[in-house]
């Protein structure tokens, strides 16, 4: 069932772009897990830079408007590469990601590149994200960022 799964990936990108975080969480399963990975050539090690379950994401979103954040907005350009069945009603989706930042002056730049490795559960026609692994190629993220990639 490739088309609905791709649609889920694109919808989550649009929801995150719009900072519709409740909408994004509605596309996530109750046992959702979100992890951002990077690799350090300096350490020769993999790193995890953010890791939350669904509740952790929810709590993080609730506090966002109290933080001092990078101004401007983000746009996710995503392309679904592959969709593979990994079990009954479970698929793994590999998606290319480019996160573009546009500042208040209207200057756009590539903020981060990487890919998503998502696990999607499909039950009775409803598809939800069970796991999102963001694997970053980019390691310099300007000041940093308070929202999920």
């Amino acid at each position: 069932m490739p088309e609905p799964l791709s649609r889920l990936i694109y919808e989550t990108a649009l929801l995150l772009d719009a900072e519709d975080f409740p909408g994004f969480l509605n596309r996530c399963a109750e046992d959702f897990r979100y992890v951002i990975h990077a690799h350090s050539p300096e350490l020769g090690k993999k790193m995890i830079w953010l890791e939350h379950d669904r509740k952790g994401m929810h709590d993080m979103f609730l506090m966002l408007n109290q933080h001092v954040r990078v101004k401007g907005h983000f746009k996710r350009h995503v392309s679904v590469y592959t969709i593979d069945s990994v079990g009954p009603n479970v698929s793994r989706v590999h998606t290319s990601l480019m996160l573009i930042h546009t500042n208040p002056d209207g200057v756009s730049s590539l903020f981060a590149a990487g890919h998503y490795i998502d696990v999607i559960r499909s039950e009775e026609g409803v598809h939800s994200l069970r796991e999102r692994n963001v694997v970053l190629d980019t390691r310099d993220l300007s000041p940093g960022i308070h929202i999920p990639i």
Partner: protein
Amino acid sequence: MTRTESQWDAKPQLPDDHYVSSSIYTDPEIFKEERTKIFSKTWKFVCHESELPEKGDFRAVDHTGWPLLVVRGPDSKIRTFFNSCSHRGSLLVTEPRGNARNFTCFFHLWSYNTKGDCISITRDQGYQDCELSKDKLGLREVRTEINLGMVFVNLDDEAEDFSTHIGDSFNDLNEPMGTKPMEVFHFHRVLMRANWKQWHETNMELYHEWGHVVNRTTSVAVPGYHERKWKIHPNGHGALEPLKVQYSNYKGWDQRADLTLAGLEPGEFRIVDIFPNTTIIVRATTIRIDTSIPIAPGLTLLEQRGLGVKGESDEDRTLRRFHHNQFWGPFGRNLSEDVIFVEAVEQANRYGASRYGIIARREELMSQDDEIMRAYYRTWGKYMNRRASHPLEK
């Protein structure tokens, strides 16, 4: 009441060491002098020993524009050299890390062992006429000291020894960093549009913590926050008395009662600032080493390391890393905000709109007293033979 042009430009009516001129952040000559008068004369943190666990392991690091090579030799000793071939100066190592028995320059294939001796010169008979031989062509070694696992270097062979330089400034770190071997599990860099000193100031003046929701809720509101005292070392270092942070005041966070590092109470926070630009911060279960590489007056590369206990279980490391990432790292709730603050200051400093920075708080050396900053800039002034308040007058 607003101010006129002349009022804005006038020197603050304060003692000389209670303000700094914005020129210290923007003037290219001052920046150039800082490289030679401060960074080539002081002890500077470059990496942690855990980044070189095995014999032959090396790290290529940037010390304010001087490329350095830190290597663990066959005798397990950590040495540092200029990452520069004795022949024509090429970088000897071009990867950030690796392991080698010897280093061979990719340009003309001269070779060195991991103790820095030159062991091979291609067609060395060509140098016989001028009596140049391998034994005279070793790498330039740089003084290296390790304390609590942190590797410090000094380009000045005549500078005072590290123990004298640091004095008792590391006392608060002895237990959390010295009881069990630590290791770096997190590394990231930020290219920041601001001066290196402006960044180090965020680790000294704590009243900007009002600007961070995490600090407001977990620290500033906590009893005892304002009553901590700074201990200031004559060499420009400082350490603040500990605080029991209430992490659980921030939505969804736990109190960090488990996995507390040695010698600490649950939730305990400690900070040690080392002149000129390194800070070690302990947050109960995890440690951050913060240093920087000045590139230009208004451009600095920040280096951030997160530390945990070496060899701990995956479960313990997961929790410790989670705590680290709550505050720090590119997705931490706190660190990026400091960069945003400092870059906002740089924009007003850049072409002189902002003329002075006020560091005049006096609170009997309590946590938001500016004496830590004043002491820092007095030390800066001694190295530079300038006053931070009017640096362009010698």
